[in-house]
């Protein structure tokens, strides 16, 4: 990844892909660690529908929470610690597998009924 880049332009809203090439969410928000007067660094990426409300103009946040769910860590929002990010190019690639980071869980849960069908 580039030594210098802009978060919105290059990282926010990008596709996250795990080491097996599986798409497992988008960069819906970014956690920055630090405070004014001291360094601020990227702490991790947030992904999941629970982040949507915070991204939407204030008047619609209540509606968004109803539609997409509130921010519940581990349930509607998953955090990917920054050291797990391998590279930021066309996609955001991870060192690990989605399952180990609790990403793409809904896909795995829905997988089983389809696997039982012929051709599934």
């Amino acid at each position: 990844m580039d030594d210098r880049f802009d978060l919105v332009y290059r990282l926010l809203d990008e596709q996250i892909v795990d080491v097996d090439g599986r798409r497992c969410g988008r960069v819906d928000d970014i956690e920055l660690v630090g405070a004014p007067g001291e360094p601020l660094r990227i702490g991790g990426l947030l992904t999941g529908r629970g982040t949507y409300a915070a991204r939407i103009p204030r008047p619609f946040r209540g509606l968004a929470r109803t539609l997409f769910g509130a921010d519940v860590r581990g349930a509607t929002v998953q955090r990917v610690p920054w050291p797990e990010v391998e590279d930021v190019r066309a996609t955001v690639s991870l060192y690990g597998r989605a399952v180990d980071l609790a990403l793409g869980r809904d896909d795995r849960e829905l997988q089983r009924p389809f696997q039982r069908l012929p051709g599934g």
Partner: protein
Amino acid sequence: MSTDVIKLSHLLELAVQDESGRSLGHVHDVRVHRAGEDYVVEGLIIGRRGLFVRLGWRRAPDPAPVSPHDILAWGDVLAIEDDRLIVRNAR
């Protein structure tokens, strides 16, 4: 080192004012650079051409600034409040 967490979504579109309350526009993007294993924030891209910046309109291929005075060094940020971001008065 502080463990305060600021979400990017909170910074985006936040109104920027200096100490005397003069409006400087809104935050449109955040520029980071590599520092060892980490990426640290070097400044905020602020201004009034928000939509164009967001759409990638006035962007050079490299993250060259939109225009030098639209980049605000992180060191100049004094406080982040709920609905605004306060920066040091321009010298």
